[in-house]
């Protein structure tokens, strides 16, 4: 039996592995999110696309160990004034077809995502963009209307992934699809897309980066059913995959290499309806007190997660770590306290009103968390109604007020694309498009605004931490846990440090024989 109560804290985190030494002919890698709809980097905001595109296309920068930006197609960036970034491109980089990368290609790639018809979710980076243009043969300049310290992070994101202009224009609507294909610069190129079956990448031997990949060919399969995934992994049909089904951790750990890494992800409850029962702080505090954090981490996440005191997990402190740490330590450690929750509920009329908790039952962990939260709330004297959402309805919550109607509380998981807490916290400023809960706190807004224009790391960290403390007190978001990234591969392979940046850095290039 795997009765979770008896188990210890859970598996440990891997931060380094031996580098790959041996060449490997072919590996088969499963993408549990299913077959990607496209390989267009502009539309690579969903896991199935990013996992593969990360090996195909490169931006100006990439995220290195510890999620630090590192140069890629650019060699450096200058920041002469708060509104200007000057980026120097690497010389001698070619697309897979041998054509050199020009500033024109870079500009085209960045600008095409600004077309709303494309539906790229990376469009958000340009909120304060004034203009972007080539200012030399191998230099482009980004001008902002308003200082925004978050912007440079996007340079390492698929928003700046470079595709060949002539190729993309020729492919038109088909760009990125099985029919149209893509043209990038990365360590792998698309060899074959057998729709419905697999995508095969082969090594790009002309890659500019001297760190030559060890694996010659990567075949992606798209098994979505967890049972089938585990059977495939355990049986050796598939060599590896990210996001291994938790239920099979024990089974797979005994077979090959199952590694965990800390991530920038958070699972949390957020207040969606500012006027309902949750407008009352006592109700929110009761909610905070009734959650079985320990049970969730041990039983739901089977130890592969950590409790959180704030919305943004410590991994995402890309700068000013000491400042963040000190402030973080001051926040209370969340723990279930049903007695406290009961007394809070007893003392508040609002707390006894019905509240609707929306969640995505298709994500098994969230289904269980929502179930447990609702049950605990009932025990504490609250009335919680569960409202299951489909992926589509969940998406609609973020884009249409009608979809949000009637929902008080939303359970969701999200991750930061890069280690900048601001990227999350700025969503909760007054009037922000994504501030669905209508959170309004002047002090919070001031702190975030200040941080956004503060270049200095520690100073910025201070401001962010101030906002973080305000939010933790107001409890408009109740962080529950940060999950680990997991990767499984058969024994005999090595080189892959489990990091969330598999979504935007060429991870397959690190993999190889032991």
């Amino acid at each position: 039996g795997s009765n979770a109560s008896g188990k210890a804290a859970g598996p440990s985190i891997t931060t380094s592995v031996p580098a790959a030494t041996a060449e490997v002919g072919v590996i088969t890698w499963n993408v549990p999110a299913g077959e990607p709809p496209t390989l267009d980097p502009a539309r690579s905001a969903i896991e199935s696309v990013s996992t593969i595109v990360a090996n195909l296309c490169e931006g100006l920068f990439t995220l290195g160990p510890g999620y630090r930006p590192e140069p890629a197609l650019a060699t450096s960036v200058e920041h002469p004034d708060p509104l200007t970034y000057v980026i120097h491109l690497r010389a001698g980089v070619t697309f897979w077809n041998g054509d050199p990368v020009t500033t024109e290609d870079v500009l085209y790639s960045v600008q095409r995502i600004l077309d709303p018809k494309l539906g790229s979710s990376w469009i958000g980076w340009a909120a304060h963009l004034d203009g972007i243009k080539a200012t030399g043969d191998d230099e482009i300049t980004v001008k902002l209307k308003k200082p925004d310290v978050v912007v440079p992070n996007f340079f390492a994101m698929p928003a700046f992934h470079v595709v060949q202009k002539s190729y993309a224009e020729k492919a038109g609507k088909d760009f990125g699809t099985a029919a149209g294909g893509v043209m990038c610069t990365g360590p792998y190129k698309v060899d074959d897309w057998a729709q419905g079956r697999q995508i095969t990448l082969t090594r790009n031997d002309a890659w500019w980066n001297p760190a030559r990949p060890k694996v010659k060919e990567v075949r992606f399969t798209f098994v979505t059913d967890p049972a089938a995934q585990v059977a495939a992994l355990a049986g050796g049909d598939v060599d590896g995959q990210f996001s291994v089904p938790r239920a099979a951790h024990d089974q797979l750990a005994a077979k090959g290499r199952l590694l965990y890494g800390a991530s920038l992800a958070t699972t949390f409850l957020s207040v969606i309806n500012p006027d309902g029962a949750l407008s009352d702080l006592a109700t929110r505090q009761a909610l905070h007190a009734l959650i079985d954090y320990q049970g969730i981490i041990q039983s739901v996440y089977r130890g592969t997660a950590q409790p959180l005191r704030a919305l943004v997990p410590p991994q995402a402190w890309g700068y000013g770590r000491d400042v963040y740490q000190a402030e973080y330590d001051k926040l209370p450690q969340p723990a279930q306290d049903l007695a406290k929750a009961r007394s809070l509920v007893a003392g508040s009329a609002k707390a006894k009103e019905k509240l609707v908790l929306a969640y995505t039952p298709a994500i098994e962990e969230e289904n269980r968390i929502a179930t447990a939260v609702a049950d605990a709330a009932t025990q504490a004297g609250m009335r919680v109604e569960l409202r299951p959402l489909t992926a589509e309805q969940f998406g609609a919550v973020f884009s249409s007020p009608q979809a949000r109607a009637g929902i008080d509380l939303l359970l969701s998981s999200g991750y930061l694309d890069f280690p900048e807490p601001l990227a999350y916290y700025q969503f909760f400023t007054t009037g922000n498009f994504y501030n669905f809960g209508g959170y309004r706190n002047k002090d919070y807004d001031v702190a975030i605004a200040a941080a956004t224009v503060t270049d200095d790391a520690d100073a910025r960290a201070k401001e962010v931490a101030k906002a973080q403390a305000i939010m933790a007190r107001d409890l408009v978001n109740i962080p529950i846990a940060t999950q680990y990234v997991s990767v499984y591969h058969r024994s005999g392979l090595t080189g892959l440090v489990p990091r969330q940046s598999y979504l935007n850095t060429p991870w397959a290039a690190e993999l190889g024989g032991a």
Partner: protein
Amino acid sequence: MAVAAWLGRRAVAALVTLLVASILIYGALRLVPGDPVLAVSGGRRLTPGQIEALREAYGLNQGLVQGYLDWIGGVFRLDLGTSMTYQTGVTSLLASRLGVSGLLVAYSAALAIGFGSAVALVSAVKGGLINRVTSIVAAVTTATPTFVAAIGLLSLFAVGLGWFPATGAGTGLADRLWHLTLPAAAMAIAAFGVLARVGNAAFAGELSREHVDVARGRGVSGGAVIRRHVVRNALAPLLTVAGLLVASLFVGTAVVETAFGVDGVGSLLVSSVSRRDFPVVQGIALVAVVLFVLVNTLVDLALPAIDPRVTAGGPAR
């Protein structure tokens, strides 16, 4: 003459069915409340402006009748529209997956029909204890939902014993059959039960007919009686049921392909339904219905060769 007229009537009936079915399929999915474009977002955040732009791009603001005419016109040109999630033609999307699903259905049908009719015949002829045992087995297998069978087979033969691969469709015919054995078996289990029962009833019914007694009374040997007078006569109901089963197996692939991670039409249907990728759902529904009508029309057309009475207007019985 009677045969030709009968065949003509069947063909016209099949075409009418297809026509009305296509209208239903298109109409139902166009009358959807809510916004199908959200499918394109893959669950990510879209601004209202982006959504409007996408609606335009997919021609979702078009009138119903015009939309249907465009769509059905496309169907005749083998163009089923463009998938919202995959951005590629639904036709090519289906074409690349039909092979696997077709093989899976054929394999599973072969298993179900082969074992089902064999068991039915043996138990009907032998009777007694064998008949009782097989009828219990048939009752239980009929009641075994495909997904329960899938879970059972998967955990026993793939995870537990490791005799068969658990997932994927394999490459090359032999490897593919190897991979599809468990999924096909999972689908075949319930179909087997149905066929065993129907077949048993058909064989037993034919066995008790007077002409069978007459043949025995004329000194025709036991084997020949079974072959010439029982099997042949029971073929019509068996074939009819098998036809219906084959067509429903095609939709049954939704469950097994999901459970066994086979990328075929069935798993595409499930994911497209949950993503509300309507062009794909419409395309698959149409293919399923065409397949159903096709198989059953073929069965109908084959019936006169088995039972000449059907063309004479009377029923096969």
